[in-house]
């Protein structure tokens, strides 16, 4: 039986809760639909190179970014489509970028691994594991020097925690008292290797705590839990506390790249992970809160339609002008076209 919105049926769950969770549901289904469309396009050869899908990790992106203003900034990893969308980048411009076309958010010059939208504070995905961490602390440090109010969120994976810059960035954020939230999207794998098999000691959060950085851990597939905890930490950052370290336990439901069949994970493990898929979990929660199935379906269909349209448009879009190969390099010493024995 349908229940009118505005009339909570569960004893918990205000109108605001429902609206917020619905917004998360919309963001997550949009991310999912974007990733599915990107994967299909990649299979069809329309998206080149490697793409790293965040299917299964949508709740982390949505839950954290819902607490950020446009002026706040994020850095992300090679697996950055979800964070970009959650931060407010336009799906159409992102899809054009993946297809390497004119009008892509990076002009077709970066692609999936270097996707960025500075207009919404998305300072870039990165093809080097852990490389976003010093950049993120630099953004936070620059904000401190200029007296700017914004905060920075650094998304990284558990695969980064054995790199030097991981340690350096945490230390740096703490000694300079920077307004930064480190979010470890812990999906248990560093590419195709179980992180715990190559990581000494209790792991990432313990390393942060050893440096006096307060760390918390949540179920990264429970978008309400992510939202609540990230919200609390971000509020405290804005109040002058921090930095903070948040571990969001999640799972990468697809392979490391779209081409990875994932033979290093057991079928049982992957099947169990699909049971924890954040999107149906949010749907179940919304149903509990009285939202009609038809409304949820409509959101899902709208997301699929939006991304199908984005992919269709991208497939027809022209390639970037060839002059783009030689622009945005440097003001001084821009390339002469002396190459190839000119």
């Amino acid at each position, binding site marked *: 039986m349908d229940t009118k919105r505005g009339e909570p049926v569960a004893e918990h769950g205000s109108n605001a809760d429902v609206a917020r969770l619905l917004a998360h549901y919309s963001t997550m289904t949009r991310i999912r639909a974007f990733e599915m469309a990107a994967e299909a396009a990649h299979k069809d050869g329309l998206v080149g190179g490697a793409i790293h899908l965040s299917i299964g990790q949508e709740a982390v992106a949505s839950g954290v970014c819902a607490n950020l203003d446009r002026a706040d900034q994020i850095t992300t990893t090679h697996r950055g489509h979800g964070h970009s969308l959650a931060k407010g980048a336009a799906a159409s411009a992102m899809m054009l970028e993946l297809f390497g076309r004119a009008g892509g958010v990076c002009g077709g010059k970066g692609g999936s691994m270097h996707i960025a939208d500075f207009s919404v504070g998305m300072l870039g995905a990165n093809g080097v594991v852990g490389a976003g961490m*010093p950049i993120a602390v630099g953004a936070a440090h*620059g904000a401190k020097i200029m007296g700017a109010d914004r905060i920075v969120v650094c998304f990284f994976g558990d695969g980064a925690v054995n790199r030097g810059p991981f340690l350096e960035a945490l230390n740096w954020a703490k000694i300079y008292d920077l307004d930064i939230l480190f979010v470890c999207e812990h999906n248990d794998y560093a590419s195709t290797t179980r992180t715990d098999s190559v990581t000494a000691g209790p792991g990432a959060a313990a390393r942060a705590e050893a440096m006096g950085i307060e760390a918390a851990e949540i179920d990264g597939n429970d978008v309400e839990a992510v939202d609540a905890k990230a919200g609390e930490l971000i509020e405290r950052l804005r109040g002058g506390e921090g930095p903070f370290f948040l571990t969001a336990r999640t799972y990468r439901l697809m392979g490391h790249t779209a081409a990875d069949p994932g033979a290093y994970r057991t079928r049982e493990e992957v099947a169990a992970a699909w049971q924890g898929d954040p999107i149906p979990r949010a749907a179940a929660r919304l149903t509990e809160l009285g939202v009609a199935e038809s409304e949820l379906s409509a959101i899902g269909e709208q997301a699929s339609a939006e991304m199908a349209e984005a992919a269709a448009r991208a497939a027809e879009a022209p390639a970037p002008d060839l002059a783009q190969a030689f622009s945005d390099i440097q003001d001084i010493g821009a390339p002469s076209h002396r190459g190839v024995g000119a």
Partner: protein
Amino acid sequence: MSRLSYAEASTQAVAEEMARDPRVWALGEDLGRGGVFGQYKGLQERFGADRIVDTPISEATIMGAGVGAALTGTRPIVEMRFSDFALCAVDELVNQAAKARFMFGGQAKVPLVARQPIGMWRSSAAQHSQSLEAWYAHVPGLVVVCPATPADNKGLLKAAIRADDPVVYMEHKDLWPFEDEVPEDEDFIVPLGQARMAREGADVTVVAWSKMVHIALAAAEGDGPSLEVIDLRTLWPWDEEAVARSLAKTGRLLVAQEAVRAVGFGAEVVATMAERMGRELKAPVRRLGAPRAPIGYAKPLEDLLRVTAEDIRAAAAEMCS
């Protein structure tokens, strides 16, 4: 004009640019005590520890934080202490700083200056003496500067700080105490990409940069062919036209560098000019540089790697015979 050392000239440059633009700041090890070579003397007292930042020994993050701060609106001077240590931050310079503007389709620039002192110094041995300017000149996205004089270490540094590109700024450690006239005008800028005619001559064009300019000038004082010495100042972009004009006059090109000769920046200079003007040259192009060996600790071993004024004179004489 005032008479300043190469180090003092740079301190003046940083102070003027920081006073002029609140977005300029510096980060690196031991800057508060003046920097390991004294080149930041007095700056922390004047500008405060928030703008002259003492960092931990975290080269990757000294550079990487510089990238993040530059992408988001500030203009950091990233002090790497020794260019040899800067190798701990090559990803941050080459994969991040040099490429962010391009990969992001021009959404942001990286206006940072990475100061990386180079050169053989005081029996400093293999890990504290290198000249790796060729590595960075090879990377699209970077500007590479090698000042040779105090005036240039003021004017070029000011230009580098004002530039919106990532500049690899390579001062020579042996030049810190060298004194000479430096303009006092706060708007004195030496344009990037422009060479300096250090000494006019008739018979051989000697192209050099950094400390080697002084060795080339000493060579020019001696007997033998008349040497025209060009100080490139900027290695990328380098002033091809200045070298071409000189070669049109002399017809002989000799590049002298402290760095290893093999695959060094001199190869870029001679190859380019041979391609451009090969038929008009009176002698084959030549390069002088260090043998391909790590820099030994014992002074006699280190000295074997040096290109001397005698080497330059001898090569020039051969080219004229």
